[in-house]
């Protein structure tokens, strides 16, 4: 049943031009960053080799691409999540799902999975770009995998938060702006914090994503993203169930 919902959601994403436009823009931006970094590496190969612990092709071309991808997702995921629930409410189609013999968790998880599937497309394109370097050199596969895991978790966190925000309003645009605000808030909350153990540092998305960018997959970061995703999925389920359960 989860997959019926996910399939329906994916289908409606790709029947509207929005999904294609988002994919095209994201791909152009990331490809531009990637190409200019590869170009930089080729032009400055001699100087780079003179640095004692000189950075490799992966550090110079792939990591910046994943760094920019986080900002790109921050801006584009609100556009993808905004209509998930709010548009169903607005068009009164929520009644079809609510009156069908499916639980709210199946609806929420189904829609979440559809979004993850969509984000995986973006991830796949990035991995393919990175792997294309193998044609003329070597890459640090471990670093690539750490970056990929980080971006998948970051995307999933954005998706879960965006899905919850979409449950709160019947206006897709309001949902988009709200999610964007929440993402930015989570992103910059530690910007003026100097001490590393501050609560704001521990809660900041950026801090936890940075770990993956530097190539380390730490349990703390995994737990952080896991908790964030589950919390917002459960909040979404509770929000939808509130309509159905005893008032």
């Amino acid at each position, binding site marked *: 049943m989860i997959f019926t919902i996910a399939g329906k959601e994916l289908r409606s994403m790709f029947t509207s031009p929005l999904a294609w436009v988002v994919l095209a823009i994201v791909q152009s931006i990331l490809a531009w960053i990637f190409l200019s970094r590869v170009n930089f590496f080729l032009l400055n190969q001699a100087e780079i080799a003179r640095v004692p612990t000189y950075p490799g092709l992966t550090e110079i071309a792939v990591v910046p691409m994943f760094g920019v991808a986080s900002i790109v997702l921050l801006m584009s995921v609100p556009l993808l999540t905004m209509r998930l629930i709010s548009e169903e409410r607005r*068009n*009164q189609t929520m*009644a079809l799902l609510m*009156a069908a013999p499916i639980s709210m968790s199946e609806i929420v998880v189904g829609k979440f999975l559809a979004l993850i599937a969509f984000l995986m497309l973006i991830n796949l394109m990035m991995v393919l770009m990175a792997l294309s370097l193998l044609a003329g050199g070597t890459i640090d596969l471990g670093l690539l995998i750490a970056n990929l895991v980080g971006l998948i978790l970051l995307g999933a966190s954005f998706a879960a938060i965006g899905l919850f925000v979409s449950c709160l309003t019947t206006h897709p645009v309001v949902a988009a702006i709200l999610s964007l605000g929440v993402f930015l808030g989570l992103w910059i909350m530690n910007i003026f914090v100097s001490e590393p153990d501050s609560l704001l540092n521990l809660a900041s998305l950026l801090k936890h994503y940075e770990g993956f960018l530097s190539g380390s997959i730490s349990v703390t970061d995994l737990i952080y993203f896991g908790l964030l995703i589950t919390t917002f999925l459960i909040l979404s389920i509770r929000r939808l169930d509130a309509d*159905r359960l*005893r008032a």
Partner: protein
Amino acid sequence: MSDTTEPAITLSAVGLSRSYGGKLAVDGVSLELRRGEIIGLLGPNGAGKTTTMRMITGTLAPSNGSVSICGIDLIDEPTAAKAKLGYLPEISPLYKDLRVDEYLRLAGRLHNVRRSAIAAAVERAKRRSGLSDKGRTLIGSLSKGYQQRVGIAQAIIHDPDVIVLDEPTVGLDPNQIREIRSLIRELGNDHSVILSTHILPEVEAVCDRVQILHNGKVVFADAISGLRQFRGGHSVQISLRWPPSIGEIETLVNPADVDKISDGVFRITPEKAEYDPTDALVRASVEHDWGLFQLAPAQASVEEVFVQLTQRDVADADADLPDALPGSEASTEETA
């Protein structure tokens, strides 16, 4: 009457109430529906019809009361109960960017129709709702009447025990209304159907029983024959060009109530239902040259019925309820 002779109860709602921001929209509504029965929920706009239906279908939580479908409680076991339920909301829940076939397949999958049975279920639902040649059309480009049929097809795709239709004929043209009504009657043969409407003749044309809601309360619940009776089923309205005095008519059709509606138009309600004053009236009109030009069964309009029911509701608030109103007893007890 024992349980073996009566069809099984498919839906039972007891004492449903719902308030919005402290104001009661539905107040102690109880319903019972048996297999093969069509019940009409009748009421003016804002009477609580849609709220009642949303509570019955599990899309809105009741503040009080319980609903069970084929004996399964809707709040404790929502998925099991909803599997036996088909629902057409007031606004059809249509994905306008899907084709009719795609949409019905999705609705079938959501309602647990097995993958192998889905093609047959879609064909059946399309045939019953007259959509056989529209399978490849985008829902968004269908006319309102056809969209309404897609909504109905969606509600019957999984062959549910209980079908809930919220104002299924609103916004359709007379031909479409006739077709939808005959479809509903057909569905009523082997399913239980609840239908809401604010059109009195629609209830009379389609339903076996009727419940009238007013301000969230059931003010009338009876079989259709009871409603006809209530509308003054055996009274006649006579229009005369040269009318005599009321007294003359009264002596002619005694014992009966004679009301003057306007100049030359009278409503005559005999005290005994089986007495038909028509013959006497025609004979007298010819004899005394009253100039009879219209003689018809007089039926109260919806508005008049509502006025009568609501006035009676107020008058009965302190007194005992008359025996003829089994449905309103329950609702008044709930609020007492």
